[in-house]
């Protein structure tokens, strides 16, 4: 009970401090550079100042947190990428040279491209379909909750689940893996799915798609609901059927959000390692970059240089996505 009390107290303190910052700094800014009840020139000068400062007040905590928690580690990683195993000695591009010559790395790059092609597209696609369909039925919320469930399951739980799906038992004995049970029921021979090189990538991807569809669904569902109803009505009047409305009116209007979801999942795919780690740990040629990095970072004491070099590669891979996003943002703002 007492613990609960302290917990609530700390929580309240933490959140209030944050709220206080925003209210406080704004208040102070308006106190230092008042514009109410001042003569014109002074007021507009103060206003210009506050207008220049305020965005940074709003951004301040975010920038601080991003810098400390992400930018600083990135810089450290870049630094490490040019150093040896223990981060002591500068080795130039040696880690990168090793990397491109490493078969496993090349394998990972190949697999990662497969993942990038399949997972974001599939998860976004299913998320969109589900968001759109569940919007129209009375039990939509229940359906959504069920589809969201994989997201809520802890990672350990998820890996057990998929073990029970892909499990392989010898032909003739009872299959406890659902997939093999189905295959056998249809007269096929059981397969050790996750050990089949190349195809096992897809079996692993299924897991991520299964999880991330919930993410796409939630975000896209919020976006779909933001579409002005009148435009849908207008389309109905124009004689469009459900599919046409979906493809020609709804999708274009939430295109921005689709792009966001797609980007987010793409980036997630670049980072994903726990699925691979838990299911195959990159064996049977299913290695991906993030797992390879993790491997080099921490396995048996770790090689920070190579781990960081791979991390840097992953970060470099998002540059096209960043550029594309800048362009989008520019276009969006210019349009207003």
């Amino acid at each position: 009970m007492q613990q609960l009390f302290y917990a609530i107290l700390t929580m309240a303190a933490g959140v209030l401090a944050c709220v206080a910052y925003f209210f406080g700094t704004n208040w102070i800014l308006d106190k230092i550079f008042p514009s109410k009840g001042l003569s014109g020139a002074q007021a507009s000068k103060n206003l210009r100042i506050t207008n220049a400062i305020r965005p940074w007040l709003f951004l301040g905590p975010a920038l601080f947190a991003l810098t400390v928690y992400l930018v600083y580690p990135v810089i450290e990683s870049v630094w490490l990428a040019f150093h040896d195993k223990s981060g002591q000695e500068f080795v130039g591009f040696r880690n990168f040279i090793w990397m491109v010559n490493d078969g496993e790395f090349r394998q990972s790059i190949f697999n990662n491209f497969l993942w990038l092609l399949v997972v974001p597209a599939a998860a976004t696609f299913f998320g969109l379909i589900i968001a759109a369909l569940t919007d129209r039925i009375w039990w939509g919320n229940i359906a959504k909750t069920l589809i969201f469930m994989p997201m809520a399951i802890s990672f350990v739980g998820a890996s057990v689940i998929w073990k029970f799906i892909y499990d392989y038992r010898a032909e003739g004995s009872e299959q406890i893996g659902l997939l093999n049970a189905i295959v056998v029921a249809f007269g096929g021979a059981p397969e050790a799915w996750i050990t089949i090189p190349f195809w096992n990538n897809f079996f692993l991807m299924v897991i991520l798609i299964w999880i991330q569809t919930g993410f796409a669904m939630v975000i896209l569902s919020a976006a779909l609901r933001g579409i002005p109803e009148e435009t849908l009505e207008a389309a109905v009047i124009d004689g469009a059927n459900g599919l046409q409305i979906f493809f020609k009116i709804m999708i274009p209007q939430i295109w921005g959000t689709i792009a966001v979801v797609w980007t987010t999942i793409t980036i997630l795919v670049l980072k994903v390692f726990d699925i691979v780690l838990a299911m195959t740990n990159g064996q049977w040629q299913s290695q991906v970059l993030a797992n390879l990095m993790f491997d080099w970072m921490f396995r048996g004491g770790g090689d920070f240089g190579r781990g960081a070099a791979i991390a840097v590669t992953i970060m470099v891979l998002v540059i096209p996505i960043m550029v594309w996003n800048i362009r989008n943002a520019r276009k969006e703002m210019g349009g207003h």
Partner: protein
Amino acid sequence: MIGAARSPLMWVVHLSVLLLVLIWTLPTAGLLISSLRDKDQLAVSGWWTALSSSTRNDVFRAPTAEAQVERDGKFVISGNVRDSDAGTISAFGISSREPVAFKAGETADLSDGAKLTVQADGSFEIVSDTSMEGARGQRIFFTASTPPRFTLDNYREVMNASGIGASFINSLTVAIPSTIIPILIAAFAAYALAWMEFPGRSLLIAVVVGLLVVPLQMSLIPLLKLYNGVGGFLGVPAKTYMGIWLAHTGFGLPLAIYLLRNYMAGLPREIMESARVDGASDFDIFVKIILPLSFPALASFAIFQFLWTWNDLLVAMVFLGTGNNELVLTGRLVNLLGSRGGNWEILTASAFITIIVPLIVFFSLQRYLVRGLLAGSVKGG
């Protein structure tokens, strides 16, 4: 969209959603059923078989000779091969080589001259003319058809683990502020990036996108170093709730800012302009107009951030101590698993115990993902 609601194709929609829901829940259903099963069964038969009665082959070890009683001049060991569950015995055997040698009710001759009879209801008798010996009980192989059987033992085991309650509170203490703080910070930042004019705005957006990719693992060592430094400097412990809130905040921010900015940028400009003309400052606009109108986006992100912090173990282990007042639920549950992690039954049960809170959060926040929030605000478009 009443037009669509009346469409004759509605049943297609119902069916497709049903199908998708089935596909998506099937794996989880497997987990749920598995969590209700006997732990030995888990690795032996598929979870779907638990739903129907099944035939299973099993071994039972009869009591040792010590349990024999003398009855009518004969020595008898009796009992029932089915421990607790009901079911019918169809066949039995006394050797691993021929486990179904006898039909239920038949009598088998044991090597030492005793006779074994197993009835269909599972009761057995070993009858011998002489007193039986040996430290080892007779093994009885049997084939039984068992009706579905479920147990709450797995849950009981998890729920009764010591410190679970405290860990539950710890997890909440981590997750709630770790959800609210980044949302607050990100919402302000997103507003600035969406609607305020300042140099370098689109560059910042790109940086945020770029930071989405930073692997968490990369950050842990530098950050912990920093925490140790700061903690040492201030003379406070390095691992505090404050520290983990901030860490989760930092890791969650890029996604939060990215999602929220996208949403806010889509709000009708006229509403903001109208507020501006009404004399509202940026702060007023943000608090009174943007925040209420961004509820769908805030709610969606809150769901994800909560999920992530609730299910997180790595960050908690690194940035928070492991004392009773600090160990989070995931950590506690993982500790229940053996060092070699083979306790499927605990895994399955704890997966379901941890899923409840996020599902409640999802369900309660889902109603903020409303339709037509902006309806009636502007004409045109």
